[in-house]
Protein backbone atom coordinates (compact mmCIF):
# COMPACT_ATOMS: atom_id res chain seq x y z
CA UNK A 1 0.00 0.00 0.00
CA UNK A 2 2.99 2.28 0.59
CA UNK A 3 4.88 3.21 -2.61
CA UNK A 4 8.35 1.70 -3.02
CA UNK A 5 9.84 5.04 -4.12
CA UNK A 6 9.99 6.12 -0.48
CA UNK A 7 12.82 3.59 0.10
CA UNK A 8 11.69 2.77 3.61
CA UNK A 9 13.08 -0.03 5.73
CA UNK A 10 10.71 -2.77 6.80
CA UNK A 11 10.29 -1.40 10.30
CA UNK A 12 9.90 2.09 8.87
CA UNK A 13 7.10 0.90 6.60
CA UNK A 14 5.49 -0.81 9.57
CA UNK A 15 5.54 2.38 11.67
CA UNK A 16 4.20 4.48 8.81
CA UNK A 17 1.40 1.97 8.22
CA UNK A 18 0.48 2.01 11.90
CA UNK A 19 0.44 5.80 11.96
CA UNK A 20 -1.73 5.89 8.85
CA UNK A 21 -4.25 3.44 10.33
CA UNK A 22 -4.39 5.44 13.57
CA UNK A 23 -5.05 8.58 11.55
CA UNK A 24 -7.86 6.98 9.51
CA UNK A 25 -9.40 5.50 12.65
CA UNK A 26 -9.29 8.93 14.29
CA UNK A 27 -11.11 10.48 11.32
CA UNK A 28 -13.76 7.75 11.40
CA UNK A 29 -14.30 8.23 15.13
CA UNK A 30 -14.63 11.97 14.63
CA UNK A 31 -17.20 11.45 11.86
CA UNK A 32 -19.13 8.93 13.98
CA UNK A 33 -19.18 10.89 17.22
CA UNK A 34 -19.26 14.55 16.24
CA UNK A 35 -23.07 14.76 15.75
CA UNK A 36 -23.66 13.20 19.16
CA UNK A 37 -21.17 15.61 20.74
CA UNK A 38 -22.85 18.48 18.92
CA UNK A 39 -26.28 17.44 20.21
CA UNK A 40 -25.13 17.49 23.83
CA UNK A 41 -23.24 20.75 23.34
CA UNK A 42 -26.19 22.48 21.64
CA UNK A 43 -28.57 21.36 24.36
CA UNK A 44 -26.54 23.50 26.78
CA UNK A 45 -26.61 26.59 24.59
CA UNK A 46 -28.92 29.57 24.29
CA UNK A 47 -30.65 30.35 21.04
CA UNK A 48 -28.23 33.21 20.35
CA UNK A 49 -25.25 30.89 20.78
CA UNK A 50 -26.77 28.25 18.51
CA UNK A 51 -27.58 30.62 15.65
CA UNK A 52 -24.30 32.56 15.93
CA UNK A 53 -22.43 32.99 12.65
CA UNK A 54 -19.30 31.30 14.00
CA UNK A 55 -20.28 28.99 16.82
CA UNK A 56 -17.52 27.76 19.10
CA UNK A 57 -16.63 24.08 18.75
CA UNK A 58 -15.98 23.74 22.46
CA UNK A 59 -18.24 24.01 25.49
CA UNK A 60 -16.04 26.50 27.34
CA UNK A 61 -13.52 29.20 26.60
CA UNK A 62 -9.97 28.54 27.77
CA UNK A 63 -10.40 30.89 30.74
CA UNK A 64 -13.58 29.17 31.86
CA UNK A 65 -11.91 25.77 31.51
CA UNK A 66 -9.03 26.95 33.69
CA UNK A 67 -11.54 28.12 36.32
CA UNK A 68 -13.28 24.74 36.27
CA UNK A 69 -10.01 22.87 36.71
CA UNK A 70 -9.20 25.06 39.72
CA UNK A 71 -12.62 24.83 41.30
CA UNK A 72 -15.11 22.28 39.86
CA UNK A 73 -17.98 23.82 41.83
CA UNK A 74 -18.22 26.73 39.36
CA UNK A 75 -19.26 24.29 36.58
CA UNK A 76 -23.04 24.63 37.18
CA UNK A 77 -22.87 28.43 36.91
CA UNK A 78 -21.09 28.19 33.55
CA UNK A 79 -23.55 25.68 32.06
CA UNK A 80 -26.64 26.95 30.33
CA UNK A 81 -29.23 24.34 31.26
CA UNK A 82 -32.22 26.58 30.61
CA UNK A 83 -33.36 24.32 27.71
CA UNK A 84 -33.83 21.36 30.02
CA UNK A 85 -36.27 23.43 32.11
CA UNK A 86 -38.23 25.28 29.42
CA UNK A 87 -38.84 22.35 27.06
CA UNK A 88 -41.41 20.72 29.36
CA UNK A 89 -43.59 23.86 29.43
CA UNK A 90 -43.18 24.85 25.81
CA UNK A 91 -43.94 21.42 24.35
CA UNK A 92 -45.80 18.35 25.69
CA UNK A 93 -42.49 16.45 25.78
CA UNK A 94 -43.48 14.52 28.86
CA UNK A 95 -46.57 13.10 27.12
CA UNK A 96 -44.46 12.20 24.09
CA UNK A 97 -42.03 10.29 26.31
CA UNK A 98 -44.80 8.47 28.18
CA UNK A 99 -46.55 7.52 24.91
CA UNK A 100 -43.32 6.24 23.38
CA UNK A 101 -42.50 4.26 26.50
CA UNK A 102 -45.95 2.65 26.61
CA UNK A 103 -46.00 1.80 22.90
CA UNK A 104 -42.41 0.55 22.70
CA UNK A 105 -42.42 -1.48 25.92
CA UNK A 106 -45.73 -3.24 25.33
CA UNK A 107 -44.61 -4.00 21.77
CA UNK A 108 -41.37 -5.44 23.14
CA UNK A 109 -43.18 -7.72 25.61
CA UNK A 110 -45.58 -9.08 22.98
CA UNK A 111 -42.95 -9.44 20.26
CA UNK A 112 -40.66 -11.32 22.65
CA UNK A 113 -43.43 -13.67 23.79
CA UNK A 114 -44.42 -14.54 20.24
CA UNK A 115 -40.82 -14.46 19.02
CA UNK A 116 -39.55 -16.86 21.71
CA UNK A 117 -42.11 -19.51 20.73
CA UNK A 118 -41.43 -19.12 17.02
CA UNK A 119 -37.66 -18.86 17.38
CA UNK A 120 -37.60 -21.99 19.52
CA UNK A 121 -39.65 -23.91 16.98
CA UNK A 122 -37.21 -22.81 14.26
CA UNK A 123 -34.16 -23.72 16.27
CA UNK A 124 -35.21 -27.16 17.52
CA UNK A 125 -37.65 -28.77 15.11
CA UNK A 126 -37.68 -29.86 11.52
CA UNK A 127 -41.05 -29.51 9.91
CA UNK A 128 -42.39 -29.40 6.37
CA UNK A 129 -42.56 -25.85 5.02
CA UNK A 130 -39.73 -24.64 7.25
CA UNK A 131 -37.86 -23.06 4.34
CA UNK A 132 -41.05 -21.41 3.11
CA UNK A 133 -41.90 -19.96 6.50
CA UNK A 134 -38.30 -18.78 6.97
CA UNK A 135 -38.35 -17.13 3.56
CA UNK A 136 -41.64 -15.42 4.39
CA UNK A 137 -40.13 -14.11 7.63
CA UNK A 138 -37.18 -12.57 5.78
CA UNK A 139 -39.42 -11.44 2.95
CA UNK A 140 -41.41 -9.23 5.31
CA UNK A 141 -38.28 -7.12 5.74
CA UNK A 142 -38.25 -6.26 2.04
CA UNK A 143 -41.78 -4.88 1.75
CA UNK A 144 -42.03 -1.09 1.39
CA UNK A 145 -44.07 0.05 4.41
CA UNK A 146 -46.25 2.31 2.27
CA UNK A 147 -47.64 -0.74 0.45
CA UNK A 148 -49.07 -1.95 3.77
CA UNK A 149 -49.93 1.45 5.21
CA UNK A 150 -52.40 2.57 2.53
CA UNK A 151 -54.70 -0.48 2.66
CA UNK A 152 -54.31 -0.70 6.43
CA UNK A 153 -55.45 2.88 6.85
CA UNK A 154 -58.58 2.14 4.80
CA UNK A 155 -59.06 -1.10 6.73
CA UNK A 156 -58.78 0.68 10.09
CA UNK A 157 -61.22 3.41 9.02
CA UNK A 158 -63.63 0.74 7.81
CA UNK A 159 -63.44 -1.30 11.04
CA UNK A 160 -63.89 1.86 13.07
CA UNK A 161 -67.02 2.86 11.19
CA UNK A 162 -68.73 -0.48 10.75
CA UNK A 163 -67.72 -2.36 13.91
CA UNK A 164 -67.23 0.72 16.14
CA UNK A 165 -63.83 -0.54 17.38
CA UNK A 166 -61.52 2.49 17.59
CA UNK A 167 -58.10 1.70 16.05
CA UNK A 168 -56.65 4.93 14.69
CA UNK A 169 -54.93 7.09 17.33
CA UNK A 170 -55.14 4.38 19.97
CA UNK A 171 -52.41 2.55 21.86
CA UNK A 172 -53.72 -0.91 20.97
CA UNK A 173 -53.91 -0.15 17.23
CA UNK A 174 -50.31 0.99 16.87
CA UNK A 175 -49.00 -1.64 19.31
CA UNK A 176 -50.63 -4.42 17.30
CA UNK A 177 -49.08 -3.09 14.09
CA UNK A 178 -45.61 -2.73 15.64
CA UNK A 179 -45.72 -6.16 17.25
CA UNK A 180 -46.38 -7.76 13.89
CA UNK A 181 -43.60 -5.85 12.19
CA UNK A 182 -41.03 -6.79 14.79
CA UNK A 183 -42.02 -10.46 15.28
CA UNK A 184 -40.22 -11.75 12.14
CA UNK A 185 -36.92 -10.14 13.21
CA UNK A 186 -37.43 -11.32 16.79
CA UNK A 187 -37.99 -14.92 15.63
CA UNK A 188 -34.91 -14.74 13.42
CA UNK A 189 -32.63 -13.28 16.09
CA UNK A 190 -33.88 -15.57 18.87
CA UNK A 191 -33.45 -18.64 16.67
CA UNK A 192 -29.73 -17.83 16.59
CA UNK A 193 -29.55 -17.56 20.37
CA UNK A 194 -31.46 -20.81 20.92
CA UNK A 195 -29.13 -22.55 18.47
CA UNK A 196 -26.22 -21.80 20.79
CA UNK A 197 -27.89 -23.61 23.73
CA UNK A 198 -27.17 -27.36 23.61
CA UNK A 199 -30.13 -29.68 23.16
CA UNK A 200 -28.92 -31.84 26.05
CA UNK A 201 -30.19 -29.23 28.52
CA UNK A 202 -33.82 -29.85 27.58
CA UNK A 203 -33.31 -33.59 27.42
CA UNK A 204 -32.06 -33.51 31.01
CA UNK A 205 -35.08 -31.44 32.03
CA UNK A 206 -37.41 -33.86 30.27
CA UNK A 207 -35.82 -36.79 32.13
CA UNK A 208 -36.44 -34.90 35.37
CA UNK A 209 -40.15 -34.83 34.53
CA UNK A 210 -40.66 -31.51 32.78
CA UNK A 211 -43.10 -31.38 29.89
CA UNK A 212 -41.86 -30.00 26.55
CA UNK A 213 -43.34 -26.61 27.29
CA UNK A 214 -42.04 -26.53 30.87
CA UNK A 215 -38.56 -27.36 29.63
CA UNK A 216 -38.76 -24.36 27.30
CA UNK A 217 -40.12 -21.91 29.86
CA UNK A 218 -38.19 -22.98 32.93
CA UNK A 219 -34.87 -24.14 31.52
CA UNK A 220 -34.21 -22.81 28.04
CA UNK A 221 -35.61 -19.27 28.36
CA UNK A 222 -33.56 -18.38 31.48
CA UNK A 223 -30.44 -19.60 29.71
CA UNK A 224 -31.24 -17.48 26.66
CA UNK A 225 -31.77 -14.36 28.82
CA UNK A 226 -28.87 -12.33 27.32
CA UNK A 227 -30.13 -13.06 23.82
CA UNK A 228 -33.70 -12.21 24.78
CA UNK A 229 -32.50 -8.92 26.28
CA UNK A 230 -30.60 -8.09 23.09
CA UNK A 231 -33.61 -8.91 20.92
CA UNK A 232 -35.80 -6.89 23.27
CA UNK A 233 -33.59 -3.87 22.91
CA UNK A 234 -33.64 -4.17 19.15
CA UNK A 235 -37.46 -4.39 19.11
CA UNK A 236 -37.76 -1.48 21.53
CA UNK A 237 -35.53 0.71 19.36
CA UNK A 238 -37.41 -0.22 16.20
CA UNK A 239 -40.73 0.72 17.79
CA UNK A 240 -39.25 3.91 19.26
CA UNK A 241 -37.87 5.04 15.88
CA UNK A 242 -40.82 4.19 13.66
CA UNK A 243 -42.40 7.21 11.92
CA UNK A 244 -44.23 5.98 8.81
CA UNK A 245 -47.11 4.24 10.57
CA UNK A 246 -47.00 6.49 13.64
CA UNK A 247 -47.44 9.62 11.51
CA UNK A 248 -50.77 8.27 10.27
CA UNK A 249 -52.04 5.89 12.96
CA UNK A 250 -50.74 7.49 16.19
CA UNK A 251 -51.61 11.17 16.36
CA UNK A 252 -53.44 13.18 19.00
CA UNK A 253 -53.26 11.85 22.53
CA UNK A 254 -50.98 8.94 21.65
CA UNK A 255 -48.38 10.92 19.67
CA UNK A 256 -45.01 9.26 20.33
CA UNK A 257 -41.69 11.04 20.74
CA UNK A 258 -40.56 10.29 17.18
CA UNK A 259 -43.47 12.30 15.77
CA UNK A 260 -43.77 14.90 18.53
CA UNK A 261 -40.13 15.98 18.43
CA UNK A 262 -40.64 17.35 14.91
CA UNK A 263 -43.07 19.98 16.22
CA UNK A 264 -40.08 21.75 17.83
CA UNK A 265 -39.40 23.16 14.39
CA UNK A 266 -42.32 25.30 13.25
CA UNK A 267 -42.83 27.21 10.03
CA UNK A 268 -41.34 30.34 11.54
CA UNK A 269 -38.97 29.30 14.35
CA UNK A 270 -36.86 26.30 15.22
CA UNK A 271 -36.35 25.59 18.91
CA UNK A 272 -33.05 23.77 18.37
CA UNK A 273 -31.87 24.14 21.96
CA UNK A 274 -35.00 22.57 23.43
CA UNK A 275 -35.04 19.94 20.67
CA UNK A 276 -31.49 18.90 21.45
CA UNK A 277 -32.21 18.85 25.19
CA UNK A 278 -35.17 16.50 24.65
CA UNK A 279 -33.04 14.44 22.23
CA UNK A 280 -30.27 14.12 24.79
CA UNK A 281 -32.79 12.93 27.40
CA UNK A 282 -34.07 10.31 24.93
CA UNK A 283 -30.65 9.17 23.69
CA UNK A 284 -28.66 8.96 26.93
CA UNK A 285 -30.42 5.91 28.46
CA UNK A 286 -30.29 4.03 25.15
CA UNK A 287 -26.57 4.61 24.65
CA UNK A 288 -25.79 3.69 28.27
CA UNK A 289 -27.84 0.49 28.03
CA UNK A 290 -26.10 -0.42 24.78
CA UNK A 291 -22.63 0.13 26.20
CA UNK A 292 -23.51 -2.11 29.17
CA UNK A 293 -25.13 -4.93 27.19
CA UNK A 294 -23.43 -4.69 23.83
CA UNK A 295 -21.90 -8.14 23.63
CA UNK A 296 -25.11 -10.17 23.13
CA UNK A 297 -26.62 -7.41 20.99
CA UNK A 298 -23.70 -7.35 18.57
CA UNK A 299 -23.57 -11.15 18.47
CA UNK A 300 -27.29 -11.41 17.82
CA UNK A 301 -27.10 -8.99 14.92
CA UNK A 302 -24.14 -10.59 13.20
CA UNK A 303 -25.35 -14.16 13.75
CA UNK A 304 -27.89 -14.18 10.95
CA UNK A 305 -25.83 -12.36 8.37
CA UNK A 306 -22.63 -14.38 8.58
CA UNK A 307 -24.10 -17.83 9.06
CA UNK A 308 -25.85 -18.04 5.72
Amino acid sequence: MIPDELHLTDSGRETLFKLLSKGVLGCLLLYALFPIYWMILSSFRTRAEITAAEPSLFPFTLDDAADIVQDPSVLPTLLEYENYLTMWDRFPVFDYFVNSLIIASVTTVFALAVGCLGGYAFSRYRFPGKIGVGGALLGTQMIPGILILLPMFLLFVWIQETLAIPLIDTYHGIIFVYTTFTVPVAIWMLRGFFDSIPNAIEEAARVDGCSRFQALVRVVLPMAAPGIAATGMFVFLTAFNEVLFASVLARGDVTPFAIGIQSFETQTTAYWGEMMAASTVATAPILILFILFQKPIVEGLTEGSVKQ
Partner: protein
Amino acid sequence: MTRTSSRVRSSVAEIEIGRYLPLYNRLSDEQQYAYKLLLPGLAMMLLIHFIPIVWGVLISVLGVDSGYVSQWYEAPFVWAENYRFVLDPRTVVGERFWYSLRQTVIFSVGTLLLTYVLGLTAALLLNQRFKGRFAARTLLLLPWVAPSVVTLLIWRMMFQQQSGIINSLLLSLGVISEPIYWLIGDNTIWTLILVHSWTQFPLVMIMLYAGLQSIPEQLYEAASIDGAGRWEQFRYITFPQLKPVSAVVVLLMMLWTMINFTSPYILLGAQPPQSGQVSILYIYNFAFSNYQFGRGAAMSVVLFAIAMAMAMLYYKYLFDQDFTEGDR
Protein backbone atom coordinates in the same frame (compact mmCIF):
# COMPACT_ATOMS: atom_id res chain seq x y z
CA MET B 1 -45.49 -18.91 37.64
CA THR B 2 -46.11 -22.65 37.68
CA ARG B 3 -49.86 -22.19 37.48
CA THR B 4 -49.77 -19.75 34.59
CA SER B 5 -47.28 -21.81 32.64
CA SER B 6 -49.34 -24.97 33.03
CA ARG B 7 -52.44 -23.04 32.03
CA VAL B 8 -50.68 -21.71 28.93
CA ARG B 9 -49.41 -25.19 28.22
CA SER B 10 -52.83 -26.78 28.39
CA SER B 11 -54.33 -24.07 26.22
CA VAL B 12 -51.58 -24.61 23.66
CA ALA B 13 -52.23 -28.33 23.79
CA GLU B 14 -55.97 -27.96 23.36
CA ILE B 15 -55.90 -26.16 20.02
CA GLU B 16 -57.30 -28.71 17.62
CA ILE B 17 -55.95 -27.50 14.33
CA GLY B 18 -56.46 -30.95 12.80
CA ARG B 19 -60.19 -30.49 12.75
CA TYR B 20 -59.85 -27.59 10.30
CA LEU B 21 -56.76 -28.59 8.34
CA PRO B 22 -56.77 -32.30 7.42
CA LEU B 23 -53.12 -32.15 6.26
CA TYR B 24 -52.14 -31.24 9.80
CA ASN B 25 -53.03 -34.72 11.06
CA ARG B 26 -50.41 -36.22 8.78
CA LEU B 27 -47.62 -34.40 10.61
CA SER B 28 -45.73 -36.15 13.35
CA ASP B 29 -46.29 -35.12 16.95
CA GLU B 30 -43.11 -33.04 16.97
CA GLN B 31 -43.95 -31.25 13.76
CA GLN B 32 -47.42 -30.42 15.08
CA TYR B 33 -45.83 -29.01 18.22
CA ALA B 34 -43.48 -26.84 16.13
CA TYR B 35 -46.43 -25.43 14.23
CA LYS B 36 -48.29 -24.73 17.46
CA LEU B 37 -45.35 -22.70 18.70
CA LEU B 38 -45.24 -20.79 15.42
CA LEU B 39 -49.00 -20.26 15.28
CA PRO B 40 -49.22 -16.82 16.99
CA GLY B 41 -46.46 -15.38 14.82
CA LEU B 42 -47.89 -16.81 11.61
CA ALA B 43 -51.41 -15.63 12.44
CA MET B 44 -50.19 -12.08 13.04
CA MET B 45 -48.20 -12.07 9.81
CA LEU B 46 -51.24 -13.27 7.92
CA LEU B 47 -53.32 -10.42 9.38
CA ILE B 48 -50.85 -7.55 9.04
CA HIS B 49 -48.64 -8.57 6.14
CA PHE B 50 -50.44 -10.90 3.83
CA ILE B 51 -53.99 -9.51 3.95
CA PRO B 52 -52.99 -5.82 3.55
CA ILE B 53 -50.72 -6.66 0.61
CA VAL B 54 -53.48 -8.53 -1.20
CA TRP B 55 -55.79 -5.68 -0.26
CA GLY B 56 -53.27 -3.14 -1.54
CA VAL B 57 -53.08 -4.85 -4.91
CA LEU B 58 -56.89 -4.90 -4.98
CA ILE B 59 -57.13 -1.20 -4.17
CA SER B 60 -54.59 -0.40 -6.89
CA VAL B 61 -57.17 -1.45 -9.49
CA LEU B 62 -60.00 0.47 -7.83
CA GLY B 63 -60.62 4.19 -8.19
CA VAL B 64 -60.34 4.91 -4.47
CA ASP B 65 -60.04 8.66 -3.91
CA SER B 66 -61.17 11.18 -1.29
CA GLY B 67 -64.84 10.35 -1.92
CA TYR B 68 -64.39 6.67 -1.06
CA VAL B 69 -62.11 6.70 1.99
CA SER B 70 -64.66 5.08 4.28
CA GLN B 71 -66.50 3.14 1.54
CA TRP B 72 -63.57 1.83 -0.45
CA TYR B 73 -65.67 -1.17 -1.54
CA GLU B 74 -68.02 1.09 -3.49
CA ALA B 75 -65.18 2.54 -5.55
CA PRO B 76 -65.42 1.75 -9.27
CA PHE B 77 -63.26 -0.96 -10.80
CA VAL B 78 -60.87 0.77 -13.17
CA TRP B 79 -58.63 -2.06 -14.43
CA ALA B 80 -55.06 -0.82 -15.01
CA GLU B 81 -56.13 2.82 -15.24
CA ASN B 82 -54.23 3.76 -12.04
CA TYR B 83 -51.05 2.13 -13.30
CA ARG B 84 -51.40 3.79 -16.69
CA PHE B 85 -51.86 7.15 -14.99
CA VAL B 86 -48.93 6.97 -12.58
CA LEU B 87 -46.54 5.50 -15.17
CA ASP B 88 -47.42 7.97 -17.93
CA PRO B 89 -44.53 10.45 -18.10
CA ARG B 90 -46.72 13.02 -19.84
CA THR B 91 -48.80 13.72 -16.72
CA VAL B 92 -47.38 15.72 -13.83
CA VAL B 93 -47.85 12.82 -11.42
CA GLY B 94 -46.27 10.32 -13.80
CA GLU B 95 -43.33 12.57 -14.52
CA ARG B 96 -42.69 13.14 -10.82
CA PHE B 97 -43.06 9.44 -10.03
CA TRP B 98 -40.45 8.51 -12.64
CA TYR B 99 -38.20 11.23 -11.25
CA SER B 100 -38.70 9.88 -7.73
CA LEU B 101 -37.75 6.39 -8.93
CA ARG B 102 -34.56 7.81 -10.39
CA GLN B 103 -33.79 9.57 -7.10
CA THR B 104 -34.47 6.29 -5.26
CA VAL B 105 -31.90 4.47 -7.39
CA ILE B 106 -29.32 7.24 -6.77
CA PHE B 107 -30.15 7.10 -3.06
CA SER B 108 -29.70 3.36 -2.70
CA VAL B 109 -26.62 2.99 -4.93
CA GLY B 110 -24.97 6.03 -3.33
CA THR B 111 -25.69 4.80 0.17
CA LEU B 112 -24.43 1.32 -0.69
CA LEU B 113 -21.11 2.64 -2.05
CA LEU B 114 -20.51 5.04 0.83
CA THR B 115 -21.50 2.63 3.61
CA TYR B 116 -19.43 -0.15 2.04
CA VAL B 117 -16.29 1.98 1.82
CA LEU B 118 -16.73 3.34 5.34
CA GLY B 119 -17.78 -0.01 6.79
CA LEU B 120 -14.93 -1.95 5.16
CA THR B 121 -12.33 0.62 6.24
CA ALA B 122 -13.61 0.52 9.80
CA ALA B 123 -13.80 -3.29 9.85
CA LEU B 124 -10.23 -3.66 8.52
CA LEU B 125 -8.93 -1.21 11.13
CA LEU B 126 -10.78 -2.97 13.93
CA ASN B 127 -9.43 -6.31 12.78
CA GLN B 128 -5.89 -5.28 13.74
CA ARG B 129 -4.59 -5.80 17.25
CA PHE B 130 -4.23 -2.56 19.15
CA LYS B 131 -5.00 -1.16 22.55
CA GLY B 132 -8.52 0.18 22.90
CA ARG B 133 -9.87 -1.92 20.03
CA PHE B 134 -13.02 -2.87 21.94
CA ALA B 135 -13.67 0.74 22.95
CA ALA B 136 -13.23 1.87 19.34
CA ARG B 137 -15.72 -0.75 18.16
CA THR B 138 -18.27 0.37 20.74
CA LEU B 139 -17.88 4.04 19.81
CA LEU B 140 -18.13 3.34 16.07
CA LEU B 141 -21.39 1.48 16.64
CA LEU B 142 -23.06 4.43 18.38
CA PRO B 143 -24.37 6.17 15.21
CA TRP B 144 -26.40 3.07 14.46
CA VAL B 145 -27.60 2.55 18.05
CA ALA B 146 -28.63 6.13 18.78
CA PRO B 147 -32.31 6.62 17.85
CA SER B 148 -32.33 7.69 14.21
CA VAL B 149 -35.18 10.19 14.70
CA VAL B 150 -32.85 12.04 17.04
CA THR B 151 -29.65 11.79 14.99
CA LEU B 152 -31.43 12.80 11.78
CA LEU B 153 -32.64 15.97 13.50
CA ILE B 154 -29.10 16.70 14.71
CA TRP B 155 -27.90 16.48 11.10
CA ARG B 156 -30.81 18.69 10.04
CA MET B 157 -29.64 21.28 12.54
CA MET B 158 -26.01 20.97 11.45
CA PHE B 159 -26.93 21.34 7.75
CA GLN B 160 -28.94 24.56 8.19
CA GLN B 161 -27.88 27.06 5.57
CA GLN B 162 -27.38 30.07 7.85
CA SER B 163 -26.77 28.80 11.36
CA GLY B 164 -25.47 25.29 10.66
CA ILE B 165 -22.06 24.24 11.91
CA ILE B 166 -21.15 22.52 8.63
CA ASN B 167 -21.43 25.66 6.51
CA SER B 168 -19.66 27.66 9.18
CA LEU B 169 -16.78 25.15 9.35
CA LEU B 170 -16.44 24.95 5.56
CA LEU B 171 -16.48 28.76 5.33
CA SER B 172 -13.79 29.21 7.96
CA LEU B 173 -11.64 26.53 6.31
CA GLY B 174 -12.04 28.32 3.00
CA VAL B 175 -13.53 25.31 1.20
CA ILE B 176 -16.58 27.30 0.10
CA SER B 177 -16.96 31.03 -0.31
CA GLU B 178 -20.62 31.35 0.57
CA PRO B 179 -23.13 29.19 2.52
CA ILE B 180 -24.52 26.21 0.61
CA TYR B 181 -28.18 25.18 0.67
CA TRP B 182 -27.88 21.57 1.79
CA LEU B 183 -31.55 20.82 2.42
CA ILE B 184 -33.13 22.77 -0.45
CA GLY B 185 -32.58 22.37 -4.18
CA ASP B 186 -30.72 19.79 -6.24
CA ASN B 187 -28.05 19.02 -3.63
CA THR B 188 -30.58 17.45 -1.31
CA ILE B 189 -30.18 13.91 -2.57
CA TRP B 190 -26.43 13.98 -1.81
CA THR B 191 -27.05 15.33 1.68
CA LEU B 192 -29.56 12.55 2.18
CA ILE B 193 -27.01 9.91 1.09
CA LEU B 194 -24.36 11.40 3.38
CA VAL B 195 -26.63 11.40 6.42
CA HIS B 196 -28.30 8.05 5.79
CA SER B 197 -24.87 6.45 5.33
CA TRP B 198 -23.82 7.83 8.70
CA THR B 199 -26.72 5.98 10.35
CA GLN B 200 -26.06 2.73 8.45
CA PHE B 201 -22.29 2.27 8.12
CA PRO B 202 -21.86 0.69 11.60
CA LEU B 203 -24.15 -2.16 10.54
CA VAL B 204 -22.03 -2.80 7.44
CA MET B 205 -18.93 -2.51 9.60
CA ILE B 206 -20.04 -5.09 12.13
CA MET B 207 -21.16 -7.55 9.46
CA LEU B 208 -17.88 -7.27 7.56
CA TYR B 209 -15.95 -7.41 10.82
CA ALA B 210 -17.61 -10.70 11.71
CA GLY B 211 -16.75 -11.90 8.20
CA LEU B 212 -13.10 -10.90 8.63
CA GLN B 213 -12.85 -12.82 11.88
CA SER B 214 -13.98 -16.02 10.20
CA ILE B 215 -11.14 -15.96 7.62
CA PRO B 216 -8.68 -18.72 8.61
CA GLU B 217 -5.32 -17.41 9.86
CA GLN B 218 -3.42 -20.05 7.85
CA LEU B 219 -4.29 -18.33 4.58
CA TYR B 220 -2.36 -15.25 5.65
CA GLU B 221 0.52 -17.32 7.00
CA ALA B 222 0.85 -19.16 3.70
CA ALA B 223 0.66 -15.90 1.78
CA SER B 224 3.35 -14.17 3.80
CA ILE B 225 5.66 -17.17 3.29
CA ASP B 226 5.09 -16.64 -0.42
CA GLY B 227 6.15 -13.03 0.06
CA ALA B 228 2.76 -11.37 -0.39
CA GLY B 229 2.62 -7.80 0.93
CA ARG B 230 -0.30 -6.17 2.69
CA TRP B 231 -1.97 -5.07 -0.51
CA GLU B 232 -1.62 -8.52 -2.15
CA GLN B 233 -3.01 -10.18 0.98
CA PHE B 234 -6.02 -7.88 0.87
CA ARG B 235 -6.46 -8.24 -2.88
CA TYR B 236 -6.13 -12.03 -3.08
CA ILE B 237 -7.29 -13.27 0.34
CA THR B 238 -9.34 -10.79 2.36
CA PHE B 239 -11.53 -9.41 -0.37
CA PRO B 240 -12.42 -12.75 -2.05
CA GLN B 241 -13.01 -14.39 1.34
CA LEU B 242 -15.43 -11.59 2.26
CA LYS B 243 -17.51 -12.24 -0.84
CA PRO B 244 -20.38 -14.12 0.84
CA VAL B 245 -20.80 -11.47 3.55
CA SER B 246 -20.39 -8.69 1.01
CA ALA B 247 -23.19 -10.22 -1.05
CA VAL B 248 -25.55 -10.04 1.95
CA VAL B 249 -24.43 -6.47 2.67
CA VAL B 250 -25.01 -5.34 -0.91
CA LEU B 251 -28.48 -6.85 -1.08
CA LEU B 252 -29.61 -5.60 2.33
CA MET B 253 -28.26 -2.07 1.95
CA MET B 254 -29.77 -1.62 -1.52
CA LEU B 255 -33.18 -2.94 -0.51
CA TRP B 256 -33.37 -1.35 2.90
CA THR B 257 -32.32 2.03 1.54
CA MET B 258 -34.83 1.75 -1.27
CA ILE B 259 -37.71 1.28 1.17
CA ASN B 260 -36.37 3.59 3.90
CA PHE B 261 -38.85 6.24 4.90
CA THR B 262 -37.47 7.62 8.17
CA SER B 263 -34.32 9.28 6.79
CA PRO B 264 -35.89 11.40 4.02
CA TYR B 265 -39.00 12.10 6.09
CA ILE B 266 -37.18 13.45 9.16
CA LEU B 267 -34.13 15.00 7.49
CA LEU B 268 -36.07 16.97 4.87
CA GLY B 269 -38.83 18.21 7.17
CA ALA B 270 -42.30 19.37 6.35
CA GLN B 271 -41.62 20.63 2.81
CA PRO B 272 -39.22 18.18 1.18
CA PRO B 273 -37.63 19.51 -2.02
CA GLN B 274 -38.19 17.58 -5.25
CA SER B 275 -34.63 16.32 -5.38
CA GLY B 276 -35.00 14.60 -2.00
CA GLN B 277 -38.38 13.05 -2.74
CA VAL B 278 -37.49 9.40 -3.09
CA SER B 279 -40.37 7.18 -4.19
CA ILE B 280 -41.65 6.11 -0.80
CA LEU B 281 -41.78 9.72 0.43
CA TYR B 282 -43.39 10.89 -2.80
CA ILE B 283 -46.07 8.18 -2.61
CA TYR B 284 -46.76 9.04 1.04
CA ASN B 285 -47.18 12.77 0.37
CA PHE B 286 -49.20 12.14 -2.78
CA ALA B 287 -51.58 9.62 -1.19
CA PHE B 288 -52.26 11.48 2.03
CA SER B 289 -52.34 15.05 0.73
CA ASN B 290 -55.26 14.41 -1.63
CA TYR B 291 -56.49 10.97 -0.50
CA GLN B 292 -55.64 9.32 -3.83
CA PHE B 293 -55.34 5.84 -2.35
CA GLY B 294 -55.93 3.92 -5.58
CA ARG B 295 -53.12 5.67 -7.42
CA GLY B 296 -50.92 5.61 -4.33
CA ALA B 297 -51.40 1.86 -4.02
CA ALA B 298 -50.53 1.43 -7.71
CA MET B 299 -47.24 3.29 -7.16
CA SER B 300 -46.51 1.21 -4.04
CA VAL B 301 -47.01 -1.99 -6.03
CA VAL B 302 -44.58 -0.71 -8.68
CA LEU B 303 -41.98 0.08 -5.99
CA PHE B 304 -42.47 -3.34 -4.41
CA ALA B 305 -42.12 -5.07 -7.77
CA ILE B 306 -38.87 -3.21 -8.49
CA ALA B 307 -37.44 -4.15 -5.07
CA MET B 308 -38.38 -7.81 -5.53
CA ALA B 309 -37.08 -7.95 -9.11
CA MET B 310 -33.77 -6.50 -7.93
CA ALA B 311 -33.47 -9.03 -5.14
CA MET B 312 -34.19 -11.91 -7.52
CA LEU B 313 -31.86 -10.74 -10.29
CA TYR B 314 -29.15 -10.28 -7.76
CA TYR B 315 -29.60 -13.75 -6.30
CA LYS B 316 -29.62 -15.27 -9.74
CA TYR B 317 -26.43 -13.40 -10.63
CA LEU B 318 -24.72 -14.61 -7.46
CA PHE B 319 -25.85 -18.15 -8.09
CA ASP B 320 -24.60 -18.15 -11.70
CA GLN B 321 -21.25 -16.77 -10.66
CA ASP B 322 -20.74 -19.30 -7.90
CA PHE B 323 -21.64 -21.99 -10.36
CA THR B 324 -19.08 -20.98 -12.99
CA GLU B 325 -16.41 -20.47 -10.39
CA GLY B 326 -17.04 -23.95 -9.08
CA ASP B 327 -16.60 -25.32 -12.61
CA ARG B 328 -13.14 -23.92 -13.05
